């Protein structure tokens, strides 16, 4: 089984090696500007921003991720569909977003990305994750496409895909949905942009 790590913030050789060991064969990285293959790992560029104009000027081959921190970021939400490929929710959004904001995101029809490390950090503080639980409701009923990544900057942040899947299952998804969030949905997004990638 091979997986996709959809959000690497800073790339290093050590990190690529570890990701390869953990069976991640496609990496989408903020730190890269060109499509590349390193140690049999495919690396794809990505632009993450909470500014829609910045995403407009992003290179064509890069994945454009619109970052949502609060409900103010969703003011011009119908226009986002033309600009972004995915919507990324930060830890603040996972705590604060209410059902209406989540409904807006669902109506956009774009895949939604969440970071597992953020979830763990917030869970540690034993805070109520209003946004996350609202999102999970839609994800469990297959109303949205969910993408999950561990968002690593250093080796310690890289979580094994089995651990990531188990966290999703604990949050209320079925094992098939959890697996899909790490394999099929990211591949669908990448193919939508024009990358001929596949997981064997």
């Amino acid at each position, binding site marked *: 089984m091979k997986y996709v790590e959809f959000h690497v913030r800073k790339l290093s050789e050590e990190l690529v090696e*570890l990701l390869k*060991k*953990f069976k991640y064969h496609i990496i989408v990285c903020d730190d890269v500007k060109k499509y590349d293959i390193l140690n049999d790992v495919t690396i794809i560029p990505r632009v993450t921003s909470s500014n829609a104009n910045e995403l407009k000027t992003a290179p064509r081959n890069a994945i454009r991720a619109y970052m949502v921190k609060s409900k103010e970021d969703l003011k011009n939400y119908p226009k986002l569909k033309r600009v972004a490929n995915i919507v990324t929710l930060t830890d603040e959004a996972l705590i604060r977003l209410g059902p209406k904001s989540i409904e807006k995101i669902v109506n956009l029809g774009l895949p939604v990305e969440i970071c*597992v*490390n953020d979830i*763990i*950090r917030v*869970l*540690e503080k034993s805070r109520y994750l209003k946004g996350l639980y609202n999102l999970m409701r839609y994800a469990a009923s297959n109303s949205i496409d969910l993408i999950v990544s561990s968002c690593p900057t250093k*080796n*310690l942040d*890289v*979580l*094994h895909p*089995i*651990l*990531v899947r*188990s*966290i999703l*299952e*604990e949050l209320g998804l079925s094992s098939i949905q959890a697996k899909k969030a790490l394999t099929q949905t990211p591949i669908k997004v990448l193919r939508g942009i024009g990358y001929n990638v596949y997981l064997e």
Partner: protein
Amino acid sequence: MYILNNYLLIILSLIITSLCISIISFILILKVKKLVELFRLSLRSRLLRSYIKSIEARKKRRLRKRYMVFEIINYGRSLNISKEELDTLMKKYFKELFGTTELSRSGLTLITIDKSKFRGVLKYHSTYRTKVLMTLALLQVKEGLIVNPLRTTGTLRKALKYARIIK
């Protein structure tokens, strides 16, 4: 003229029969759809759901032991943690996430750890697999031990063999 009339009649009759067939098939499709919907509704019914739950509960009664072989990635550095310390850390984080009752039910224990091979074997009950894995994720984030779950087995002997702790 007579032959032409006959042809027209035949064509007309064919058209009428095809129309009849299509109407009948449409009615049948509607009926089948209704039946399918009824079947779906019956599947959603409370009685059936409770029955399925009771079956699942019966299944849950039988707890099977599972042994997980895991690897700690430490980049050549020696492990500064003893077996007892790691065991208490795991239990602490499990308790933090799911509570004391779940911890006692899960049967989570660290059976062995080989410091030279950076491998260890965990024991838990099969239904608590995801919870144990989530605990390992929390352990990695908090303590800085990169955990790589290698394999899950049903017997300790196989787990030790896989971890290459015994030959």
